[in-house]
């Protein structure tokens, strides 16, 4: 019987890809100029975007160096350090996610780490912790977990000085006489 909410899968539903897969791998739907959601449209205009279709199931590690839209199911780990990951409205991730920007319109179960931004749209659902300097969550979105927007402390600035010849000093004695002849304990 047809039930409301039950996804009707295409005939090739359940095709499973196991192991590490890189976007752009032959066999995966490599679709040039597929636009990501509106806000990222400009960003992706001049880039190729790999699209993982609804019927694709991936188990394992997914990494790459181009933007990626996932409409299928991924179970494992997704790593796109310098690129945009979009979890489409049909996408289901049960994975640790690392990317520059993560846009969620579907479901993610797992922690998300983004170096730039995480954007959860109204249809999006995240069950996990988020680490990102910027987080946008639309009304109606679901989130269960923590959000860490902590700015990392800036690296201590070391003044650049002209190279000086290194001078080695002779070690001081354990105690030296003070100006008035008093002994000052070292340390």
């Amino acid at each position, binding site marked *: 019987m047809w039930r409301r909410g039950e996804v009707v899968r295409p005939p090739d539903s359940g095709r499973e890809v196991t192991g590490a897969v890189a976007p752009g791998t032959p066999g995966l739907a490599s679709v040039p100029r597929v636009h990501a959601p509106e806000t990222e449209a400009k960003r992706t205009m001049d880039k190729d975007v790999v699209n993982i279709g609804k019927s694709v199931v991936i188990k394992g590690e997914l990494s790459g160096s181009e933007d990626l839209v996932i409409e299928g199911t991924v179970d494992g780990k997704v790593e796109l350090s310098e690129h945009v990951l979009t979890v489409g409205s049909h996408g289901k991730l049960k994975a640790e996610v690392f990317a520059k920007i993560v846009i969620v319109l579907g479901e993610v179960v797992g922690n998300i780490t983004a170096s730039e931004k995480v954007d*959860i749209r109204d249809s999006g659902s995240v069950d996990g912790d988020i680490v990102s300097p*910027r*987080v*946008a*969550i*639309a*009304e109606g*979105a*679901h*989130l*269960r*977990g*923590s*959000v*860490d*927007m*902590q*700015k990392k402390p800036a690296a201590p600035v070391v003044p650049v000085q002209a190279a000086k010849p290194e001078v080695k000093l002779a070690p001081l004695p354990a105690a030296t006489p003070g100006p008035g002849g008093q002994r000052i304990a070292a340390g």
Partner: protein
Amino acid sequence: MSSGGTVQSLRGLLSRLGSVRPAEGTRPDAGSRAEPKDGAIITSKGLQQFLSHLGTRSAPILLDLGPVVGSNITFFGEQLNCKFMVEDLFADLERHLRERSPEELPAWLSKRLTLDAGTVDGVLLWDLYDYLDRPAAQALATALVRLLRPDGALLGFFGNANHAGSGPTTFMVLDGSHVRQRPRASVLVRRASLQNRDIIKMFDGLRVSDAFLLQTGRREMLFRKGGGGRPIT
């Protein structure tokens, strides 16, 4: 007169007689003011105090017990540079009441928050306590007191008898002292309000740092764990 009309008129009479003991500094008519309309903005002094208290800490951990509001996460993240944890107990409460009996709620609430003791710097309770019965409220209070770090803070809003029967509101923080209240669809119905002394007793182990009465009749209470708050009398 119909029974519904009788109940309404009795409720109105009770509110006029002052069935709810007003908080310190209450204006006589404050309790009878209506709940703000959709999107009304309130000035929150409790939030100011909460922020200034937590602002002195580096990278505090904040626990929000309300529904997910993106702008709140952004606001607290930017203001406090904090780790923000969302545990939507309103949604959980709805689910629990649909699937289980209310008698199980206190036991369930006492186990619901699985964080380690003394790990949270601030708790945003919002108006959750208006939807809990006393045993459930007590169980949650005990769990929250356990979670708070020494000198941690807890901010809660508590309605009065005039708010009974209304549904929950979403609190959207606009800035350090203004909050927009928006009613939202929910099966939860506000129960009779708690007296100040009952709230204080429930949060045994915390001190009332500040308490404010809003123009809507709501009470804002800021609790602190230990530290130099107002002693409980």
